[in-house]
């Protein structure tokens, strides 16, 4: 009897999904494929270099033209890490991992760690020039910390420092935006490029791109500390006295 019901349920859900899929496909079929539908997109591609100083158009859109969304996304991540920390909060929590990693694993991780850090920093510093940016860079850095957590049973990040760094990086992002408000009259205004014209003759090199590298560095630090904090919170268990 139970089996019949579950079969019926499965059948019904398959039919329902097919109907929804067909319906969405109907909508999609009317979106012309391969045709030039770029309205705003064209503007970005034509003006990105002179207006933002970035060679990477995606980062220019993400940080400069639509920087407001990125500020929101940074906040979403901040909420995620705060939420995890709030829900897993206990008076005393410690790592309770039991098996020691092999010598090859621990030594390898130790050696690998600085390279991962370096590469992560490279990604977010070069956001305006190469693919990547603050979010992948920060995630790479957090991967380094995850590696340390998995290789050593007693490893722990200094969370007090991490929490403060995370907060300060977020504040600096908003502060850069507020300086834009004070200098250029708009929140998140790129004052380094538009007002100071810093690096205008340097297009395509490291010291260009207006405030994009500055913001991406802040985002990289913030994302790195945040994801490490989430890992730290999830790996610890409550210790009863």
């Amino acid at each position, binding site marked *: 009897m139970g089996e019949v019901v579950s079969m019926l349920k499965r059948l019904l859900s398959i039919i329902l999904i097919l109907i929804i899929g067909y319906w969405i496909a109907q909508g999609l079929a009317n979106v012309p494929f391969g045709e030039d539908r770029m309205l705003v997109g064209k503007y970005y591609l034509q003006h990105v270099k002179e207006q933002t100083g970035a060679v990477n158009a995606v980062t220019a859109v993400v940080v400069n033209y639509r920087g*407001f969304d990125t500020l929101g996304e940074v906040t979403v991540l901040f909420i995620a890490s705060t939420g995890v920390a*709030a829900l897993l909060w206990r008076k005393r929590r410690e790592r309770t991992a039991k098996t020691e990693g092999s010598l090859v694993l621990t030594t390898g991780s130790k050696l690998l760690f600085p390279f991962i850090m370096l590469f992560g920093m490279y990604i977010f510093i070069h956001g305006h020039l190469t693919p990547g940016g603050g979010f992948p860079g920060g995630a790479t850095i957090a991967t380094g910390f995850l590696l340390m957590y998995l290789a050593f049973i007693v490893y722990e990040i200094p969370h007090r420092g991490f929490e403060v760094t995370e907060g300060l990086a977020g504040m600096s992002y908003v502060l850069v935006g507020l300086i834009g408000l004070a200098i250029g009259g708009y929140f998140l205004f790129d004052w380094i490029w538009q007002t100071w014209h810093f690096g205008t003759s340097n297009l395509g090199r490291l010291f260009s791109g207006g405030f994009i590298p500055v913001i991406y560095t802040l985002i990289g630090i913030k994302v790195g500390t945040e994801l490490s904090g989430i890992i730290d919170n999830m790996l610890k268990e409550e210790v009863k006295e």
Partner: protein
Amino acid sequence: MSQVASLLIALPLISAFFVPVLKQIKKSLIFPYLTLITLLQTGIAGWVFYEVYTTGKPILIYAGGWRPPVGINLYIGPFAALFILIIAIVSFLTSLFSMRMVKVEPIDKYAMLFLLLMLGATGMIATGDIFNLFVFMEITAITAYALTAYNKTGEAAEASMKYMILGGIGSSFFLIGVALIYGVTGTLNMAQLAEFASAGKIMPVVAQVGLSLIIFGLAVEAELFPLNAWAPDAYQAAPHPITVMFSAFVVKAGLYAMARILYLLQKVNGWDSVLKLLLIMATLTVIFAELSALRQKDVKRMIAYSSIGQVGLIALAFSLGTQAGVDAGVFHMLNHAIVKTMMFLGVGYVGVMVGGTRIEDFRGLGKRMPLTALSLSVGAISTVGVPLFNVFWSKFRIIVATIQAGFVWPAVLVLFASVVEAVYYFRLLHVMWFAGEGERIKEGWIVVFLLLLALIIVGIGIYPTPVWEIVKRAGSDIFAVKVYINNVPLLGVVQ
């Protein structure tokens, strides 16, 4: 000068990021700090409200200095100005109450999430960009998930889990809808979308599918019928001040976003059928919520159901497609925000003082905590829709607008639901005033705010005209799309 209004977003953000630093300095400063920030936010919101209503012009904020549709703009028209002010005031009140009601650790995380919930709702109401709306909706929703589970009880975790799964599915649908609409128009700016829709440049099928997906996604946040199963659990399990915020503005932000997008695309073919769908969902929301409230043993849960019922009523008003309906809906939004703020604060206060919110805990409350009981009674009578209280006017206007729009059945059903509502609210009144005995419990300064809110309720009830004038302007902000399009100067490069 008007760009300074972007502080409405920047201030809660930077203050939330500052909390981890403040925690290292002194932990006992966190709640006073929270109150200070919300007070500042109220000040800015008050200034914005004054500016918008005296000049009659909306405040447009260009993030990064880019004109739309290249950049993102915030549009603070009469509606946004009014509701941002309400959000700020409610947040200020709840931050005061949080000092008494939230004792569960970690309070620093609570303060951050609190500020970001306020930020998310403010952004949702202020934004003029459809993808930015999604970002702010995520901020609001994810904060809400975390705060629902904040008490760390089993039922809180369960409620949060339900909310998270439903909300996650809802926002994915929303995002698919946005992608479809972007695919066919190539823009994300609301004003430009409305322009395209008016010019008939959006293909009807795409517009219909996209619009329904967006409405479906927002319906989770707006607590409409098949998607609101998370709401009663979340309302009951969340910390008391957070329940106030859910009911007073988180739902409203979802409803508003829904109405805004719906009316922006009103020239699209097939718009009527989307409207009909919403009408059915709204009517069902009212009926199911009120009938469920009838059977509740827990007062907080009962009021949660009642709140959902009222939200359904607002959605009904928005789905009529007429100016009168939208105005009435906005009026009800305002009244509901005031009444439910007071009700949930009062119930939460009783919960803290007496140690529970079951209906037995309310026996003889009139003798034990007379002032709290008095304000709760004012709220209850008002919600039912008795003349000389504020909700009467908005309910009356909604029903009149519904009949004018030619929908007799929904009006009858909603009226029936009001009768059901009367039954359980009067039962609560009976329990509070005519049953049980009890010692007098000393009521603190909190009661002053409750009584003040009760006074506002009666005040609007007796003399609704000035509020109605404000509400009418806010309503036309949603309805008059032509004005909206003209108010947002688009960059002339694209076409």
